């Protein structure tokens, strides 16, 4: 059963991404929730909004993130708020925090995928050359015969 | 309506027929200037396609005599037939380009007219004079689609500079830009913010602020007249 709770003073505040926007157009607010247990999807239990994150890149291939560093420091330092992983990654990328391990892992995985794709592409290219070479050989063989 | 005799000798044909003949590549289609502006016999256009024309044709058409005869220099929305019951959320043309109704809005019914930022004259007809805001949709008699086009093309025209408008006056505080500058900036100035009662405090002409004539329609008796007239009916 959900406990009767006054969001302002309950437990350890947590900073997370609250999904706004609509279908096919996600838009995240980085905001402070009273506690992880209460979940972050309930709009009216957001304590404060400390930033926004637009996951879709704009025409200049940029993902925009805005962070209210003053208030963020207050919640992190004073109120010792818990921070969710995506927000930690964002803070890592912004330089306030060190880079989050998960970002390293993702970067390495992306590199591997890219490498694999390139390798596949090279093979495909080489295979295509073989086919072109093969028919010529057959023609030359036919011509010889 | 082109009634005077010099129109007679021009080639009169149905505009949609012109559309079909465009399909046949062999017949060379003369530009409207020589061929003469299409003259639309069709009273009831329901179900017919609205022909497509280019912006250059529209510009030439708006300068042509046919346009002047049809609209006599008045803005287009003055010729809207107000006897039809006009809701503001009707669409003249459906998504396939066919007319939905017979009494189309002034822009849809005229085949050459469509809102475009390269033709500011047409957009300016629909602006409240002295401002860059479009007039009310009911007053303009436009359908919802054309009204949206009007607003969109107005914004594009502003962005491309074909319709100049009053940009707000930017008050610079020089101390913010130059370290050595010390003296205070003057009172911030606002575009169209100079009021006559500040410049010319004439005791005879009193502008009591609490009774300033903002928003009241003391000289628009017809608004009040309509209300009573309607009540009387």
């Amino acid at each position, binding site marked *: 059963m959900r406990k009767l709770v006054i969001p302002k003073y309950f437990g350890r505040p947590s900073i997370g991404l609250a999904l706004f926007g609509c279908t096919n157009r996600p838009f995240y607010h980085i905001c402070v929730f009273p506690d992880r247990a209460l979940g972050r999807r309930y709009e009216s239990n957001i304590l404060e909004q400390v930033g926004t994150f637009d996951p879709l890149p704009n025409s200049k291939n940029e993902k925009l993130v805005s962070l209210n560093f003053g208030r963020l420091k207050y919640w992190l330092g004073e109120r010792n708020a818990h921070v969710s992983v995506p927000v930690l990654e964002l803070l890592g990328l912004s330089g306030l925090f060190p880079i989050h391990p998960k970002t390293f892992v993702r970067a390495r995985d992306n590199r591997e995928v890219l490498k694999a794709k390139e390798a596949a592409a090279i093979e495909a290219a080489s295979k295509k050359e073989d086919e072109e070479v093969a028919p010529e050989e057959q023609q030359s063989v036919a011509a010889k015969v | 309506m082109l009634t005077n005799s010099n129109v007679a000798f021009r080639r009169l044909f149905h505009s949609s027929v012109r559309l079909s003949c465009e399909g046949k590549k062999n017949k060379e289609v003369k530009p409207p200037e020589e061929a003469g502006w299409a003259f639309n016999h069709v009273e009831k256009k329901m179900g017919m396609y609205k022909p497509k024309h280019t912006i250059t044709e529209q510009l030439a058409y708006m300068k042509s005599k046919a346009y002047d005869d049809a609209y006599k220099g008045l803005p287009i929305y003055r010729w809207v037939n107000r006897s039809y019951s006009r809701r503001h959320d009707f669409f003249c043309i459906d998504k396939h380009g066919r007319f939905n109704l017979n009494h189309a809005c002034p822009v849809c019914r005229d085949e050459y007219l469509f809102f475009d930022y390269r033709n500011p004259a047409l957009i300016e007809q629909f602006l409240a004079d002295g401002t860059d805001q479009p007039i009310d949709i009911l007053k303009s008699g436009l359908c919802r689609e054309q009204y949206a086009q009007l607003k969109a093309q107005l914004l594009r025209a502003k962005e491309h*500079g074909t319709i100049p408008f009053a940009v707000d006056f930017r008050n610079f505080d020089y101390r913010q830009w130059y370290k050595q500058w010390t003296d205070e900036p003057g009172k911030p100035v606002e575009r169209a913010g100079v009021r006559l009662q500040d410049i010319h405090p004439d005791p005879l002409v009193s502008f009591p602020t609490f009774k300033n004539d903002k928003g009241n329609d003391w000289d628009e008796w017809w608004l009040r007249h309509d209300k009573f007239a309607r009540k009387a009916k």
Partner: protein
Amino acid sequence: MLKFKPLLKSSLGSELRRGHSAWVKTNTSSSSSVDVEQLFIDDEVQKLLTNLTEIDLENKVFRARRTTIQQRSHFALMTEERLEKTMERMREEARRFLQFVPVKEPRTQTVKVLSQDPDLETFDTSKFVFTDITFDATDQDRTVVVREPNGLLRTSTPEEHDRMNRTYYQKPNRPVFPPSLFQDPFLQDALDRNEHEFVLDWACWFYEPDDPAFIELSHKIFDRINARRNFETITSTRHFGPFVFYLALNENIPPLLNHFGGTGRIKECANLIRLQKTLRPDWRVTIAKGDSDEKIVKDYLKQNNRFRDELTDLVAFLERGVIKSKLQSRETRTVATGARKQATVNARNVRGAEGPLGNLSEEYAVKVVKSEGSEGGDFEQRKLDKTPQRRGRWQRSSSKPRNKNE
């Protein structure tokens, strides 16, 4: 992948250019480092620039512009001296409207690299732009940081910085991406329509004064005004100060001198030469303290007769006191207004097109009837019997003619 390589390299280039300000285009003889901002704030220069900007209330400062809300026009009957006092108040108000746009060096395009994380390579396909929205950060000192896909964390370029400001702190008429009016095909169209003031107003509202794009755009417009010689589009506006400053700094004031000379304003010519002298102290022309305007201009002409062919109107005015035709255009405007007052219809053109009937006079025979009384009828008669079968345009029965297309 590293799109940014050139920019870092150019940062070195701009170092060299640092000494040489962006406002000084031609590396003239005195290409020494000129502190443009310092020069602009100098009292002497500010006074000269304000004197050079004439105040034209009706056509320029308070001309009819499109506002967002319709405003009622207020009328007041005044006595003559009251009118003079009001005009003085308007002039004082106009002086505040003619506040100059600050002349600033463009911000450096170099970016500071904050941190390099090679093993963050390709962590994401697109850049991340971080903006600080702490409430007490103003537009200028807000920190905007960009994380490249290759893991490089750097500060933002001026263009990005301003774009983020425009995104997160919106103002009316300030969209995120620069409007296409500031690019060329449309810019040239607007300038052909003599809307220089509108374009410059919007540019100084949209960009920051020290934004490289703004400075480059304003220089482009100034050059075109100077090339086309249509100075009246920019006189008595807030951009005339920077325009004259730009000309004087680059030492191509002859066209403007010619313009002032043509309209017979020697004081402005002298001020212009004094301005160039203050901006370029090592300029050959010597100006003594108590010189009269006339003398300064004559000295200038004597020493720089290589500009003689450009200064024809000035020379004409000095020698023969001839006011150039440019003034005529203003006079024609006044004449036009004056003409409207006289009667346009007289015996000669009463029958023709300029007469009362206008273009109707071709369709109908116009007979001038002296007395109001009996003959009035036959005039009507003649009009009717000439076109019995078709009723005249005015007698059309339905107030709304059948539309061409219905």
